[in-house]
């Protein structure tokens, strides 16, 4: 009897450990898989995605009303310079995510006054040389993550125009 109780306790303790590990590491693993899929052009460079359809299966719940552009970032060697586009008369935003999915910084069109913005994303332990006035300095909580630009298609007829406008956005290693 005691032997069976021992086995049961061992099994439950092991199940609890597996549960904890899965819950703790699942977000990072899911994000890592997404970053691999999104980083086809390499890190610290921008990709302009197509408008989402039923065939878009990289990231769950894509919005069909947005144009997404993205960079997978790695600031372990140098900071990243992020330049936003400024599509007119619609909502746009740039959102920064850590490797464990946290949205640690967001800037939208209203906050930017409708103007293009420059963000320097700084890795841990790095210093940034003086930057032009108005540059936004953001500390990255993780060395790797994702920059996601959203441009709202507020009228289907504007999609080509908005697609052209959003292509002014860029991600480049800070020289």
């Amino acid at each position, binding site marked *: 009897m005691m032997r069976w109780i021992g*086995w049961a306790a*061992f*099994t*439950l303790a*092991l*199940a*609890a*450990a*597996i*549960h904890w*590990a*899965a*819950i*703790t590491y*699942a*977000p990072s693993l*899911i*994000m890592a898989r*997404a970053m691999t899929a999104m980083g086809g052009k390499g890190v610290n460079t921008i990709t302009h995605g197509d408008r*989402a*359809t*039923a*065939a*878009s*299966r990289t*990231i*769950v*719940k*894509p*919005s*069909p*009303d947005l144009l997404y552009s993205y960079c997978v970032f790695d600031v372990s060697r140098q900071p990243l310079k992020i330049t936003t586009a400024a599509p007119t008369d619609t*909502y746009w*935003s740039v*959102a920064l*995510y850590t490797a*464990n*999915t*946290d*949205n*640690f910084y*967001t800037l*939208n069109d*209203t906050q930017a006054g409708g103007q293009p913005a420059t963000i320097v994303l700084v890795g841990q332990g790095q210093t940034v040389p003086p930057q032009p006035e108005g540059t936004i300095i953001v500390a990255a*909580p993780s060395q790797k993550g*994702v920059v*996601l630009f959203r441009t*709202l298609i*507020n*009228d*289907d007829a504007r999609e080509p125009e908005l697609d052209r406008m959003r292509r002014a956005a860029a991600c480049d290693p800070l020289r």
Partner: protein
Amino acid sequence: MKFLLRLGAALLLAGILGLGSAYFAPRYAVGSETSVANGPWHTNLAAGGTNADAYTRTFVALTGLLALNKDETIYYNATTDSAGEALDGACTYRIEGRDPDARWWSFTVYGDDHFLVDTPTKRYSISKTSVVRTPEGTFVVRLSTTEEANNWIATSPDGFQVTLRLYNPGASVKDDPAAAPLPAIVKEACS
């Protein structure tokens, strides 16, 4: 030999219990203190935020990776109608009400796999800028597999869910997301 068999059985059972509970537990993060229900709509205010707990992070990673934090966007999701019955791909529904309090909003239908429903019409969503309103400012959006001219989103006979995005939510939503006026989801008919 008997010891190895028992060890193998224990490892297998622990794996099933551990991974199975990890798979289902985040779905019940809906009961945590950061989760909010408003009629058929549910949201987790910690989604995308830096203060999210492990269950919320996992839930969001599985069902809404790269969500914005609640100051930028609040995402409500519905898997039931306003009567509390599960959304059924064999049924027709209407979403009825007025504009939610947000700078921009949209209803989007997703399959049970959290991806857009494969439909030739590509009518995946209705938004603040595409909805047709009555002179009184109300609207009715129909969810069905049968195409309609306006205010219609295609559903999947295999099952679906609806996401309501509120970009730059207004004060009534941010202050009380459980009580903010949101449209109802009403079942019309089933085939």
